[in-house]
């Protein structure tokens, strides 16, 4: 998986290194920023994202925590309310459930509930998604649940550019921002301009232009969807691929512009189908672009099972390029 980006003096790096560069940049630029989470320091991060930062910034700002997700997430909320700019790392989305009380009942509510007297400028990063044979307690994609919550923003950087650029922008937000990093993306590599920096976090982006069908996706599924679009092109179908980037708020304008053009939509979402983000997007298309549609909306989601360990079953449980191809053709009546 390679991507080419414009800009002079590009450097080759991985998604993991892009996130690390974003962290280093933020820590260097703003003294209020610190990183806190399980094994972020001495271990170097569960996915080696923060490797080397402890030596550079010291244990006060690269703060190893005990296994107390609720405690240290709440501490991030309190520190943010008192003027710091914490980045809390939760090792995986499954573990984030142990901090859900703090995220929902405090971080997301305080501004509204206090009549705008207090805000929580906190960034929470976490790994999400399956594909590493980590079985049913480390592999789920629950970002759609978080996207249900008013009061927070939810981001899903899928590209090197976004991995590098979303963090700084998120840190400028006066409200909590959750950033979901799909575990299958950490090793992708490509080129970025040496001076790559902050990017917008409120717009979806069309990653591939096409006129026949809109494939709407985000995060780890973006690359599978682009792969499917290439396969579709070989069959004479030009798919447009929309990368949501922000799951809350959703960029309805970009979604509807694409659907209005192609008149066909398939949503690709690694979350489970029932009650999913894909369902929300589908419904918004019905509400806002129903008369543009030439066919029912399709969905490619994870199968409704706890993600299993064996490779073949895990693969079968997840959205894959062939399933996306099939769904796109079905939407076009070319099954």
């Amino acid at each position, binding site marked *: 998986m390679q991507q080419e980006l414009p800009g002079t003096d590009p450097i080759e790096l991985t998604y993991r290194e892009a996130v690390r560069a974003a962290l280093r940049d933020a820590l260097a630029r703003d003294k209020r920023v*610190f990183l806190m989470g399980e094994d972020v320091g001495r271990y170097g991060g569960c996915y080696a994202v923060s490797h080397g930062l402890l030596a550079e910034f010291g244990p006060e700002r690269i703060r190893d925590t005990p296994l107390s997700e609720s*405690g240290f997430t709440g501490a991030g909320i309190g520190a943010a309310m008192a003027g710091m700019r914490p980045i809390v790392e939760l090792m995986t989305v499954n573990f984030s459930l142990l901090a859900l009380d703090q995220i929902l009942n*405090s971080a997301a509510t305080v501004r509204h*509930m206090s009549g705008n007297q207090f805000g929580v400028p906190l960034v929470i990063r976490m790994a999400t998604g399956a594909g590493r044979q980590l079985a049913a307690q480390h592999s789920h994609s629950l970002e759609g649940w978080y996207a249900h919550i008013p009061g927070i923003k939810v981001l899903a950087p899928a590209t090197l550019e976004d991995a590098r650029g979303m963090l700084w922008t998120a840190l400028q937000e006066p409200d909590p921002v959750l950033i979901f990093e799909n575990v299958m993306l950490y090793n992708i590599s490509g080129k970025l301009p040496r001076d790559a920096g902050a990017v917008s976090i409120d717009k979806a982006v069309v990653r591939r232009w096409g006129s026949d069908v809109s494939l709407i996706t985000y995060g780890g599924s973006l690359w599978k969807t682009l792969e499917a679009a290439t396969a579709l092109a070989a069959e004479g179908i030009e798919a447009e691929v929309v990368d949501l980037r922000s799951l809350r708020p959703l960029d309805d304008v970009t979604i509807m512009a694409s659907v209005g053009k192609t008149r066909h939509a398939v949503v690709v979402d690694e979350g489970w189908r029932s009650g999913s983000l894909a369902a929300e997007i589908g419904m918004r298309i019905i509400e806002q672009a129903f008369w543009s549609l030439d066919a029912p909306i399709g969905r490619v989601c994870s199968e409704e099972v706890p993600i299993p360990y064996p490779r073949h079953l895990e693969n079968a449980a997840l959205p894959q390029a062939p399933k996306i191809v099939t769904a796109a053709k079905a939407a076009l009546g070319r099954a």
Partner: protein
Amino acid sequence: MTVAAAKPHLSREHMLDMLRQMIRIRRFEDKCAELYTQEKIRGFMHLYDGEEAVAVGVIAALEKRDRIVATYREHGQALVRGVPMTSVMAEMYGKQEGCSRGRGGSMHLFNAAANFYGGNAIVGGGLPLAVGLGLASHMQGDDLVNACFFGDGAVAEGEFHESLNLAALWQLPVLFVCENNLYGMGTALAISESETDIHRKAECYRITSEIVDGMDVVAVEAAARRAVQAVRDTRKPYFLECRTYRLRAHSMFDPQLYRDKAEVDSWRPREPIARFQGWLEANHMIHPDEVSRLTGEIDAEIEAAVAFAEAGTWEPVEQLSRFVYADSVVPTGQ
């Protein structure tokens, strides 16, 4: 009355003020109960009757610049802290002149000007937040004390243990104030805890702890002064267990099936206001006429607060979704 330890603060004026603060909370809440029956106040409302000495004693020991995190039973803390009674009462009504714009109600009193970080109605939920305030103090190098009130019910929550551990591990200036009123809603401490000596749990985390008679305002203040001084000087956490008793129901919906009337009656003689007032009178530090005068002044303040709330306005429905996020977002990107 354990007066010896608090000698520096035993001026008559200060004593009178402590009495006044307790009476002020009690009478404010009596009025709230009345307004609740009139359906002026709705939702869940938890009264502090019997526990007033804790808020009054602890907050007397704090500086204005110190921060406070409280629970859903926080009318007393807010009033003692200096959140104007008018805005507290308007909040009880849900009016936009309320201290949280009317959006929080009884359980969510906030006031940034008073460094009052809110009534948190998730039991134990305020503790991690207070740890975070302490972490900010630590990283910013200030000398603040971050006080966190919580009940004995919170002790069973994982967040309690996570928070004590973090505060001790990272040496954070947090004052943990446990208001042990012996019941988490309707479940007695002995039914929910294997170790009912709550302060001992703090010791497990190597946090200095102290037990104090939470029905004795002088003792509470004396202990709180020691605790606040320790936190301010050492920048380490401190744990104060205030043993108290809730004389009224848990909330306005509670028929109190879980405790005998005899038990409640047995606590009444220890009730903090009458006890302190009696002691002051016996020691000729106050004349009954002065109490009448104080009460009259308080009643006038309450009357004004009710009038303020009654005259308050409802937030326009058009503003329902305002402040889910900040109004003016800082420009993003470079």
